[in-house]
């Protein structure tokens, strides 16, 4: 399978990339790791006339501290995220979830920016970024703006990105010391997208849940924040009745597609189980 013809551009700066994308218009697509776009091009489901490869832009790489935030350049690969001690120690759920993305070869190429910006409901980072309260930096011809992950996703492959804009970095607030976390992902095999997945970040105080955030992957056309489910566990010690209530509240907002991963009812059912398991494991980890 060979993609359709296109012109290849490799800008060296964000400004040049943004200018190219603005000038070339709808016929151009930015290229990050390429592990979503290139397969789509080989299947001719995507036929961009121009590819703007972001690999030549050094400024889009790397992980740095900015106060209480970790700022991750959009072209930082999943392999690089896994190699970061800072991430493993201060945002361990990110390390845990990245290990569940695809396979080692894909993680050498796949980037955090591509994963969050593509708008694919199957990607693991979007729901996690919503759970962590992350913010995306978007840059276009008119300048830069910051959009909360929670406000970014509008539909399958539809996001807050305007034509000509690229996502340049992801800013992740470091969770409180002693927080508990878990990313539970049900998948049919290594490399598969989630049948359903849940991210939980919580803190405990005196054995009760003090704060909690729950995100859901691939159970709706966008990633979801399960706000009601998170509210249901606040002030509890996650007893069986509370867990049941939280799972039901999460299932109530799920609207998965029926596909090879199972019918709607099954995917909602296992989605609830992912929430329950993630809550239990996160609570066990919290100090």
């Amino acid at each position: 399978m060979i993609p359709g013809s296109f012109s290849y551009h490799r800008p060296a700066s964000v400004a040049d990339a943004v200018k190219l994308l603005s000038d070339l218009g709808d016929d151009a697509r930015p290229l990050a790791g390429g592990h979503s776009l290139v397969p789509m091009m080989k299947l001719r489901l995507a036929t961009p006339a121009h590819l703007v490869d972001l690999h030549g832009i050094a400024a889009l790489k790397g992980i740095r501290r900015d106060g209480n935030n970790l700022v991750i350049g959009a072209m930082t690969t999943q392999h690089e995220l896994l190699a970061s001690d800072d991430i493993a120690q201060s945002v361990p759920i990110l390390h845990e979830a990245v290990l569940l993305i695809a396979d080692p070869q894909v993680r050498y190429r796949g980037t955090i920016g591509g994963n969050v910006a593509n708008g694919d409901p199957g990607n693991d980072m979007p729901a996690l970024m919503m759970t962590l309260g992350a913010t995306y930096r978007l840059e276009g011809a008119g300048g830069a703006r910051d959009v909360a992950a929670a406000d970014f996703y509008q539909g399958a492959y539809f996001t807050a990105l305007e034509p000509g804009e690229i996502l340049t970095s992801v800013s992740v607030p470091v969770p409180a010391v002693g927080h508990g976390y878990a990313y539970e992902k049900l998948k049919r095999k290594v490399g598969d997208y989630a049948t359903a997945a849940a991210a939980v970040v919580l803190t405990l105080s005196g054995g009760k849940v003090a704060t909690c955030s729950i995100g859901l992957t691939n159970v709706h056309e966008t990633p979801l924040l399960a706000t009601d489910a998170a509210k249901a566990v606040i002030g509890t010690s996650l007893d069986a009745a509370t867990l049941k209530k939280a799972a039901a509240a999460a299932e109530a907002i799920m609207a998965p597609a029926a596909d090879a991963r199972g019918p709607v009812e099954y995917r909602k059912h296992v989605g609830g189980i992912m929430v329950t398991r993630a809550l239990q494991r996160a609570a066990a980890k919290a100090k």
Partner: protein
Amino acid sequence: MAKTHVTMKVNGAEVEGLVEPRTLLVHFIRENLQMTGTHIGCETTHCGACTVDIDGMSVKSCTMFAVQAQGSDITTIEGMANADGTLSALQEGFRMMHGLQCGFCTPGMIMRAHRLLKENPSPSEQEIRMGISGNICRCTGYQNIVKAIQYAAAKINGVEFKEAAE
């Protein structure tokens, strides 16, 4: 479509060629360079048969364009034997442990295992299995591939290889 001139290092030798932007790296390696050890399996980034080593990373060469490899340092299965032509530890491991049957996945398996052992010279069985989880084998059931990599790790580390009891 205008062609682009690319240069890169493959198995220690400088190579060059004219490619369309849409030419996938695996096609450049197989057709322009005539190195057909790197296989094309699924063409959809799942099977890992096309895995090569690029600048210290295992990459599925069916999911990268040749123009993106400009200036890079690539190793393919053709570059895996020792300088004197004898089999490298991994190749020897696959031979000794029967780590292949039809052999189609083997170049990708060996290239992936090569990088895995560079990053983690003494992997556990579980680390090996996760490390090759991007490579599909339809013959062996993986058991002997895992043993082949354990054999190679032992040889590289200069320790005796002890096959685990089944």
